[in-house]
């Protein structure tokens, strides 16, 4: 080929990269993962509409009556409201307390740092079962038992350290010079956080927030022991129903699960709408 040939050809718009082996493997693996997830999701949805489904590709018939039963029999609406309330409160408080703590643990080498670190580590690694009852008793003793406050407080125990631990590497990534600049230009601690660090830490906070929310939504033990009938969350209701020794029909639990999923997916989609966790702060070119 002569140079003229190539030069005459249409200019390459942008350099297209050939997919590498690792890329192919990654995408295939991701594809499998996504397929399983969607399969699980679809099966639960299908099951929730099934009259009977005893194996095979498709249930025998479809019906929407399970939803009615799920809604009426288990106080779902109350539980939904509680879940939303508790979820939001826990996320907000955990972030408010956890982000500054994570910041300090990442930036400072102060005396006693390792003790604090350990203190933050323990609640995450201890199974909640081992302290749930005592914690609940404490809540009842101070007169909070059964209240929404108690539900929020006990859920902070495993989630706050989670926030702290996740934030540490995120903080380490931020150049201290940017922080210095903010200080010089008159930002006190509060403003340093609200105007500079929080925006820069947003991806990390979002990650932490999602995980906290999920933990709170999914935390059964702690919530169960302190919640009263009118403050229980969805999972407590759901777990109670699923573990009903009488054997609850599959489609009924599936219907409850789908309701729960809808709420969760909605929350997730909304949060992703506003921030993408990977929103690279310094996205350079390309």
């Amino acid at each position, binding site marked *: 080929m002569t140079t003229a040939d190539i030069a005459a050809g249409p200019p390459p718009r942008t350099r297209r990269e050939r997919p590498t082996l690792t890329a192919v493997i990654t995408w295939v693996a991701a594809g499998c993962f996504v397929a399983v997830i969607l399969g699980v999701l679809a099966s639960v949805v299908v099951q929730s509409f*099934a*009259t*009977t*489904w*005893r*194996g*095979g590709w498709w249930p*025998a018939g479809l019906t929407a009556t399970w939803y009615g039963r799920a809604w009426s*029999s*288990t*106080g779902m609406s109350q539980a939904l409201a509680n879940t939303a309330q508790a979820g939001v409160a826990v996320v907000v408080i955990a972030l408010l307390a956890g982000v500054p703590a994570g910041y300090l643990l990442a930036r400072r080498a102060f005396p006693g740092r390792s003790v604090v670190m350990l203190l933050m580590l323990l609640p995450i690694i201890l199974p909640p079962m081992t302290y*749930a*009852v*005592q914690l*609940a*008793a*404490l*809540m*009842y*003793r*101070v*007169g909070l*038992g*059964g209240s929404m406050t108690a539900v929020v407080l006990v859920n902070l125990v495993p989630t706050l350290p989670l926030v702290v631990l996740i934030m540490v590497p995120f903080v380490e990534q931020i150049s201290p010079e940017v922080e210095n600049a903010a200080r010089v230009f008159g930002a006190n601690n509060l403003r340093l956080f609200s105007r500079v660090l929080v925006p820069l830490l947003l991806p990390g906070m979002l990650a932490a927030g999602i995980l906290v929310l999920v933990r709170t939504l999914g935390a059964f*033990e702690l919530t*169960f*022991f*302190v*919640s*009263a*009938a*009118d403050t*229980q969350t969805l999972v*407590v*209701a759901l*777990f*109670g*129903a*699923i*573990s*009903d*020794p*009488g*054997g*609850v*029909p*599959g*489609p*009924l639990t599936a219907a409850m699960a789908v309701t729960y999923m809808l709420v969760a997916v909605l929350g997730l989609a909304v949060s992703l709408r506003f921030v993408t966790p990977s929103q690279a702060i310094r996205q350079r070119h390309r």
Partner: protein
Amino acid sequence: AQQTGADEVVTPERPTSPIALTLLDGAGNLTGNKVIYDNFAKAHPELVSGISYQTAPAPDVAGKVRAQQVADKVDISVVLGGPDVLGAGQTENLIMQLLPQYSSSLPDLSQVQDAASKELQDLSGGYGVLNRYNPNGPLLAFHPGTMSAPPTTPDELLAWAREHPGQFTYAQPANSGPGRTFMMSLPYMLGDSDPSDPVNGWSKTWAYLRELGKYVTSYPASSTIMNQQFGSGQLQLIPTIVSMDINSRRDGTWAGTDQVAMFADQHWIGDGHFMMIPKGVSPQTLYVALELIKFTLQPDQQALTYATGSLITANKNVKPSDAPADGQALLQQFGRPDFYPQALASGQNHPPLPPPTMVKAFDLWQREVGSHVGS
């Protein structure tokens, strides 16, 4: 921080204004009886302002009650649960002894309970009042399309399982009514030395279950899972209990054509739900809770439970014919009218193991049988 066991008797006091009740269900009692409790609230607005319900896995109930008591702030009025819940409540000193202390506030149980129920009621040591009773099983469920005659003795069952490995199983006794019923009936069928002592008196049972376990690929973690596997045809033969047979067909988990059969030497193990009152409730709550227990045992209320798959109620004076129309229809459609009435009349009735003994049996089962699965 443990609650002291001082048993001062609280005197019930009629509340001057209606109070709120909280029922904590650790046994699926609400499935059948919620309608009764709602009726109570309707019937006695002067006592009850409202009832809220909470459900929980049986093992977690005690912890919850305990947490409230340690803090001296009990807001659960009534605990609903099986013998396991009652046992835990009793050993941990969490629930009130209702009989004989409050017998004056309760109906005369001898007028209400038949012999089998009474045996179970006595096991409770007066810490609870039976509000639901079923001779549970064991029964064997099978698909008539693939099996004409199911085994009728443990030996036949073993032989069948040997020939069809992986097609028979039972759910873990600790988490399943059918599983534990099956396990508890075996000492009687196999002629073990002491059916009430799993530690020293069940040698034949343990040997049998170990042998049977060789042909089992896994023990499902709950009845629900087992029922689904049976319904989808992965399993050909499972032990079951009466209510589950009815509900599984009604809910479509099983095919409507699936059949059940008794053992030749049938030993029914009974099961029931108790109503319990946690220590630390106020005299007013106690008063209303006792009223609720009384109300629940009324014949007209018990008759309502037929609509939820019961074949027998907690009040011996109630007959299926007393059931409301929907209950009648249900019994007609799923209640195997040609099978259950005479089946329940035959065989022997036994109460289940008392809770602490039962836990030992579960533990032993797990070590002796469960831990060897698949290895």
